[in-house]
Structures are given as structure tokens and as C-alpha cells.
């Protein structure tokens, strides 16, 4: 695979996996208005994924399609951040189940949107014009996602004792996974070298600023990071991605020659 496709797949898988996760709320949101809002976030993410997969497919040529890329690659071939594949709950083994926790959803959307608001902006200057165009479109979307999740983060952190505790717990659980943002990967390094991608390190100070500002307003404590650094973007995932993909891909794979 070329430099560009590896990197584009990382971006596409991020969008798809988080879109898939957020869509789990559809019909189960804490209030109707929020159910609708979160579906909009999902639709934006799936839209981004589609554009990126289409771009990869056009670069790969042959019979590659967005759906082949989404539905017929296995867990180890997915390049998304581990953060994005985790269920909406505290730490759990892959086959364990828990109720959807809105605190987890909001914290994750906030941490990721804060990154992508910076990354898409930087990618507007990508040497790959198609990617730059996708970045411009996605930037508008993610700015709204950031606003939505940040506002909620403040509400939940500041709200009640229960919401504060739940949100702090979600932050303690998820924050360590953001270390993956700042560790390099061959795909990112190659994309940066080719002028297609961005050196994430250059975004870290701004990201810290966004995060710290919101956490202060939300009266939440930023956890100290140590220990395991996830490696989803290199294809080494949590136990959860396998289940997510098994479900997502089941129908398409049961009818590999189907027309949808």
C-alpha cells in the first residue's frame, strides 16, 4: 500500500469506528433532543469515513470500493485509535456488557474532537488536494462536535455530584488512551514526510490547551498518565474492535455478492 492510503485508512477508520459507536445511542438517548443531536454527529463521521474510503479506493483502483474497505478488512487491518472502539462504559473485557454511559460518550467525543479540530485544520494544507478538500468539510463538522461535547462536558462535570463522579471516572478511564495520539506510527511518519499528513506533536500544546480549559470549567481533574499506551493505529487493538466489526460486517459478509 502507498504512503497515502495507509494514512487515509487511519483517518477513515477513526471516523467509521466512532460513528458506529455513537450510532448505538440512536433510539436510546437521555432525551429526545440529544438523541437527535448525537445521530447528527454519527452521520457526519460516517460521511467523513465514506469520503476517505472512496479516496483510498480510487487510489487503489481495481475493484476497491468504500464498502470493501469498511466491510471486508479484518480487525488487524483497521488503523483507528483504540480510544474510539471502546464501548460506552468503564473498562470491560471484550465479551462483557454494560449499559451505555453518556459520560463516557461525551468525554471520548470531546477528547477526539479536540484533536480533530486541530488536525483537520492542519490537513487543509495537505499536499493531497482531495484530502485537503475532505479536511475543509470535516473541519466545520468537527468544530460543532467539539462545541457539543465540550458544552456537555462542562454540564456533566459541573452538574450534580453523580454526574461529576461519572464524568471524572470516564475521564480517568479514557485519558490514557489519548497517549496514542502522540506516539508516532510508520503511516503517519511517511505521510508527514510526503507532505500529505501532519506531525501530531505540533498540535499537542494546542490540544492540551483545549482540554485543560474545558476540564477547569467542568471542575474535573486531569488524570496523570502512566502505563499502557494503546496501539490501535498500528493494528493492535483492544478486545472490543473484533466484536464491533463482527456485528458491523456480519450482513455484508453473509452476502458477499449482494446488491445493497
Amino acid at each position, binding site marked *: 500500500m502507498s504512503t497515502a492510503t495507509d494514512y487515509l485508512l487511519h483517518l477513515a477508520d477513526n471516523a467509521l469506528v466512532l460513528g458506529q459507536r455513537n450510532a448505538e445511542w440512536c433510539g436510546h438517548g437521555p432525551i429526545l*433532543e440529544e438523541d437527535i*443531536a448525537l445521530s447528527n454527529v454519527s452521520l457526519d463521521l460516517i460521511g467523513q469515513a465514506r469520503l476517505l474510503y472512496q479516496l483510498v479506493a480510487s487510489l487503489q483502483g481495481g475493484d476497491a470500493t468504500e464498502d470493501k474497505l469498511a466491510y471486508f478488512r479484518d480487525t488487524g487491518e483497521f488503523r483507528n485509535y483504540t480510544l474510539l472502539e471502546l464501548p460506552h462504559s468503564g473498562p470491560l473485557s471484550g465479551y462483557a456488557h454494560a449499559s451505555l454511559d453518556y459520560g463516557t460518550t461525551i468525554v471520548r467525543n470531546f477528547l477526539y474532537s479536540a484533536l480533530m479540530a486541530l488536525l483537520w485544520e492542519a490537513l487543509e494544507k495537505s499536499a493531497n488536494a482531495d484530502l485537503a478538500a475532505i479536511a475543509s468539510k470535516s473541519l466545520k463538522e468537527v468544530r460543532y462536535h467539539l462545541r457539543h461535547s465540550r458544552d456537555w462536558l462542562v454540564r456533566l462535570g459541573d452538574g450534580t455530584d453523580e454526574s461529576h463522579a461519572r464524568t471524572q471516572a470516564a475521564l480517568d478511564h479514557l485519558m490514557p488512551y489519548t497517549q496514542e495520539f502522540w506516539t508516532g506510527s510508520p503511516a503517519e511518519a511517511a505521510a508527514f514526510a510526503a507532505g500529505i499528513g501532519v506531525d501530531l506533536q505540533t498540535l499537542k500544546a494546542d490540544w492540551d490547551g483545549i482540554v485543560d480549559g474545558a476540564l477547569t470549567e467542568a471542575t474535573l481533574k486531569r488524570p496523570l498518565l502512566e502505563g499502557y499506551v494503546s496501539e490501535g493505529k498500528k493494528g493492535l487493538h483492544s478486545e472490543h474492535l473484533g466484536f464491533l466489526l463482527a456485528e458491523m460486517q456480519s450482513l455484508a459478509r453473509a452476502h458477499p455478492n449482494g446488491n445493497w
Partner: protein
Amino acid sequence: MTTALKEWPLWEVFVRSKQGLEHKHCGSLHAADAAQALDMARDVYTRRQEGVSIWVVPSAQITASNPDEKGELFDPAADKIYRHPTFYEIPDEVGHM
């Protein structure tokens, strides 16, 4: 907190469908505060490009005229036909006025 106060307040939503047009009432929704009402109005009422600008107003803040007073409020305007341009006949040769 009593149960009655557990419900988010109701807001009326007004949307400007395009630049140059007025904001028009399009419905209502529940939100905890004004900023949230605005965001939710965006998500609920402009999913199909219905708007370029939104106002939200707490429903409780709207003062409405009393339907029982409809007669005294609005009927007196009915016979003021001289307020309308069509009341006046102007010779054709004047053209459009």
C-alpha cells in the same frame, strides 16, 4: 428538587430560512439552558438546510393576546379600508403608483 422541576424548560424556536427573510416560528423543544436550546434547535429543526439563523425564546416568556379579546383587539381594523392603496382610484394615464 420536586418532580415538576425535573423537566427541562420548553423553548420556542424561530428559524430564518434564508438571508433576507424574517425568522419564523417553527416549533418548540426542551433544553436546560439557552445555549443548549440553540444547539438543539440546530439539530432538530435544520437538518435539511431549513435555516441560516436561529432564535430561541423560553416559552414561558411569551405573552400572548387573549383570544376572548379578539373582537376588541382586531375587529376595529376591519373598516379602515382607506389604509389600503386599492382604496384610491388613480387615472390610468398616471401609470404605476
